[in-house]
C-alpha cells in the first residue's frame, strides 16, 4: 500500500467554465482593444504587418559597389517604402554614361542596411488576431496583445494539428465510433466545425480542407494522417489519441448538446514550457443553452479525490472513462514486464460494478 497520493494530469471537459486566454501577435504590432471591452469571437483586436518575405542580399555583390560607397549610392534609406521595380541603389558605369541598378523585386520596405547587406521586407497581408474566445478583454499588453476572460463550454483535446478558427458546430457523430466520410461533406461545410465520433478518413480530411471547414473534432486520428493533418489549413483536434478510438462519452455528449452553436477552435498544441497550450474547443455561454442544460453551475477544476472522474490515457485503457473509488489507496501493480507500478482500482463506466487496477500514471482527471 502507498500512503501518499500524487498528482494527475487533467483535461477540462465542462459545460460551463470561466477561462482566461492570452492572445498575442507573432511580432509587435497594434492592439486596438481596451480593458473591459466586450468582444466577439471573430472581432480582430490586434494587428501586425509581418513581411510576406524577407529578402537578404549583398549590395556589393549585386552591383559591385564597395561597402564604404554603399551609403552614397543608395537612393532609399532604412524604413523607406519601395514600389516594385523602384531603384534602390545605383552605380554609374562606363564613365558615367550608364548605371548599374538594383530594383526592388516587389513592393516593400527596407528593413535594415548594415555594411553592404540589405534586408528588404516584401509587403504581405496584415496578420490579424481575432478574439477567438467571445468574452471581455481583461488586460492589454501594448504592441503584443491581451488577455480575454470568457465563460462557456470547454473541450480540451489530446492533440491538435495547429491553426485556429471560428465556426458553427456541425454534428456528424452518429455514434462515438462513427468515422467521418467525405461523401457527407457538402457545400455548407464551409465555416463549420465538423464533429465526428471515432475518426476521419483521409478523403474527408482533404475535402474538409477544400471546402474550407472551420475545424474538425474527432476522437482519434490514424497515425498515417498525423503529418497530413498538420499540413492542411483546417484545424483538427483529437480528443482521445491516435489510432481508432471512439470519442469518450463525456466529450461526445457535451459536443452533441453544443450542435449548432458558434465556437472557437484552437488546435495549437504546444506541450512544453511556459507557453504550453492544449488544443481546445470553446463555446461561449448563451442564455438559451443555459436554459436547456441542467448543469448551470461552474465546473470546478478537477482534483484527485474519492469518486473523481478519470480517463485512461494509455493503452489498453486509452479513452475509457471511469471513477476513482470512494476510499482509495495506491497499491503496487505488477506489470507484464516484471516491474511494479503504483496502481489504483478504477471502476470503468463501460463495466459498472467492476474494478480494475490501473497504473496511476496512465490516468488523467477530467471535468
Amino acid at each position, binding site marked *: 500500500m*502507498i500512503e*501518499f497520493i500524487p*498528482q494527475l494530469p487533467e483535461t477540462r471537459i465542462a459545460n460551463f467554465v470561466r477561462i482566461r486566454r492570452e492572445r498575442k501577435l507573432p511580432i509587435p504590432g497594434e492592439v486596438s482593444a481596451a480593458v473591459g471591452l466586450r468582444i466577439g469571437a471573430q472581432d480582430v483586436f490586434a494587428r501586425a504587418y509581418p513581411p510576406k518575405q524577407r529578402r537578404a542580399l549583398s549590395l556589393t555583390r549585386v552591383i559591385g559597389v564597395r561597402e564604404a560607397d554603399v551609403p552614397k549610392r543608395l537612393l532609399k534609406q532604412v524604413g523607406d517604402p519601395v514600389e516594385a521595380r523602384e531603384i534602390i541603389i545605383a552605380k554609374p558605369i562606363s564613365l558615367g554614361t550608364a548605371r548599374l541598378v538594383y530594383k526592388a523585386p516587389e513592393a516593400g520596405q527596407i528593413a535594415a542596411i548594415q555594411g553592404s547587406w540589405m534586408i528588404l521586407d516584401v509587403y504581405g497581408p496584415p496578420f490579424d488576431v481575432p478574439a477567438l474566445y467571445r468574452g471581455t478583454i481583461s488586460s492589454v499588453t501594448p504592441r503584443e496583445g491581451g488577455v480575454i476572460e470568457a465563460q462557456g463550454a470547454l473541450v480540451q483535446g489530446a492533440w491538435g494539428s495547429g491553426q485556429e478558427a471560428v465556426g458553427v458546430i456541425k454534428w456528424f457523430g452518429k455514434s462515438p465510433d462513427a468515422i467521418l466520410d467525405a461523401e457527407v461533406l457538402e457545400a455548407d461545410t464551409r465555416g463549420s466545425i465538423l464533429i465526428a465520433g471515432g475518426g476521419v478518413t483521409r478523403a474527408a480530411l482533404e475535402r474538409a480542407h477544400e471546402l474550407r471547414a472551420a475545424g474538425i473534432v474527432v476522437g482519434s486520428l490514424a497515425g498515417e494522417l498525423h503529418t497530413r493533418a498538420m499540413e492542411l489549413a483546417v484545424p483538427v483536434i483529437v480528443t482521445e489519441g491516435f489510432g481508432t478510438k471512439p470519442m469518450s462519452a463525456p466529450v461526445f455528449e457535451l459536443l452533441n448538446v453544443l450542435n449548432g452553436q458558434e465556437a472557437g477552435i484552437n488546435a495549437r498544441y504546444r506541450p512544453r514550457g511556459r507557453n*504550453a497550450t492544449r488544443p481546445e474547443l470553446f463555446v461561449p455561454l448563451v442564455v438559451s443553452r443555459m436554459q436547456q442544460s441542467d448543469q448551470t453551475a461552474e465546473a470546478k477544476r478537477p482534483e484527485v479525490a474519492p469518486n473523481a472522474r478519470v480517463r485512461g490515457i494509455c493503452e489498453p485503457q486509452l479513452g475509457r472513462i471511469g471513477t476513482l473509488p470512494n476510499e482509495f489507496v495506491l497499491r503496487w501493480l505488477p506489470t507484464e514486464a516484471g516491474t511494479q*507500478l503504483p496502481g489504483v482500482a478504477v471502476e470503468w463506466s463501460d463495466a459498472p460494478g467492476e474494478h480494475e487496477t490501473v497504473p496511476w500514471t496512465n490516468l488523467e482527471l477530467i471535468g
Partner: protein
Amino acid sequence: MADLPNSILVADVGAVATKVGLIDLVAGEYRLVGSTRTMSTCDAPYDDVMLGVRQGIMQLGALTGRRLLDSKNALIKPTRLDGDGADAFVAVTSAALPLHAVVIGLSRDYSVLSAQRAVNSTFAMVEHTIAVDEESGRWGTTASDGRAGGPSAAVEKLAELKPDLVVMVGGIDGGALAPLREMANIVAAVGAAMDETQRPLVIFAGNREARGDVAERIGGLMQVRMVENVLPVLDQMNPTPLQNEIEAVYRQRQMENIPGFEKLAAWTDKGIMTSADAYTRVAEYLARKYQLRVLALDLGAAATTLIRSDGATIKRAILEEISIGYGLETLLDRVGLEKIVRWLPTSFDAAEAHAQLLNQAIHPTTTPTRWQDLTALNAAGREILTHSAQVWKDEANLTLADSDLIVLSGAPLARGSKPTALLLMLLDAIDAQGIFSVAADNGGLMAAMGAVAAVNPEAAAQALENDCLVTWGTVFVPDVSARTGEGLALTVRVEPARGGQLEADVKMGSLELIPLGEGEKANVELRAERGVTFGDAIKGNVFKREVQGGTVGLMIDARGRPLPVLENMERQREKMQQWMWEAGA
C-alpha cells in the same frame, strides 16, 4: 569529513518526471534509502516545479517513515534528533526548454562543423547553419533579375527564424578579417530588421582578432558575448569556452525561467545543476575510478544524451528534438515509420505501432504495461540511438564501438521494459564490439549523484554503486566479418564460481543468453572458429576471463557488425522475432 552532510535529499526534475531520493548512512555505508517518482509540474496548468518536488518528498516521507517537510511544507534541514529531515538538499534539472541556435561561419567543414559539435553537446538545438564556402560562391548568392548576385536563401532563412542564439564562428586566430566583417554585417542586418524585443543573443567564437570589428558592427544592436575561438588553429578544436558560454546562457534564459526555479534553488546548498552536467560527472567518475571507457546513454522523455569518457577526455551530445517521449513525433517525421517497424516482429501491426508511438508523444507521463507497447517503444529507441550515434560518427577518433562499460538511463527503464529487451535494443542500435559490461540506472537518480558529489563525494560514490547502478552483465560481441555462412561462430564454456559448468555452441548470426545472476562470477572460455576474433585487444582464438553476471547474465552476440539488417521487410521482421527469442526479450 565531520562537516559533510550525512543525509542528503536529492531531486532530479525532468520535463516529465520528478525523481526524489534520500541518501543516508546505513551500517556505515551511504545508501539510497528510498526513492520516488512523481509527475513534473513545471508546465501549465501547474506552473510550479515545487508542486511535483514537494509531492515526491511527501511520498518519500511516507515510504521511509521520516518527515522531510514541516507543517508549512518547508524542508526540515538539518536532520533533527528524532531523525526527521535531511542535512542537505541537492537538485538537478532537465526541465527547461532548449535554446534555439543558428550557427554562422566561414567554412562548412571547419568552423561551422566545430561550432555545431560544441552546440550539440549543450542544451541547445542548431536550427540552421550558414557557411560561406557553400552554394554558388560567397554567401550563396544566386542570379536574380538577370544580374549576378541575388538574394541569399541561407541568410533569408536566418532572417525568418527567431533564434535565441546566434553563434558566429570562423577563421583561425590571426587569419583574414574581411570575411568576418561581412559575416558580422549579415548578423547585424538580420538583427536590425527584427523588433528589438526579439533580437537574439550573439556569441562570437571565431578569430579573436575580429572581436573589435564584430562588436563594432553588432554591439549596438544586440547583446554580444566574446569567447575563445572554437577553432584557434586548423586542426585543434577548442569547444569548451563556447560550450560554457552556451550553458551560462541556458541557465540564465531557460533554467531560471522554469516556474518555481528560484524557490527550488533556495532549498539547495550548491545551486541547481543541469542533469546533463551531473550525468557527465558520474560518467567521468566511473571512467576514472575503474579506468574504463564508459558510454552513458540517457534516453529521456524530452532529450537524448550520449556521453563518452575514458577518464582523460569527455565527449557529449545532447539531442533535444528527438527523444523517447515528446520527441517521438519528430522521430517519426525524420526517420519514418518503416525504419522503426523493421525492429518489430511480424506479428505487429504497423498502424497500431504508429498510433502507439504518437500516443506516447502526447502522453509522455504514461507507463505502458503491455509487451507490444513496450516493444514498439524500444523499436523507436533503436532509431533514436542510431540517429544520435550519427552525431558522433562525423567526428574522427570518436566511436561508440569500443566501450568497456555501457550505462543506460532514462524513460525505457522507468517504463519497466525487461532488461533483456533493453539490452537487445542497445546491441541493435550501437555497433559496439568486443567485451563490455552493461549497467542500468534503474531508479533514475544516477545523474543526481553528480550533484551529490558536490556536497559529499563519498556519499555520491557509495550510493551510486550500492543502489543506483544495477549490473546487467557482460556482453561478448566477436568480430565475425571474416567468416561467412551460417555455421558455428564459437563455443563457450562457463564455470560459475558456485560450481557447475555450462557449454554452448553459438552459431553465426545468432545470440546466446547464458544466465549468471547478480553478484555471481564465472570463468568464461570462448573458443572462436576460424575468421572469428575478439577485437584487436585479444590475440588468438581462445579467450578466458573471469566475468561478472547480472540481471541479464552473459550475452554473446554473433550477429556481426554492422548489424545485418535485411532489405526485405518481411524477412527482417522474421529475423527480429528470432533475435528477440534468442535474447529472451
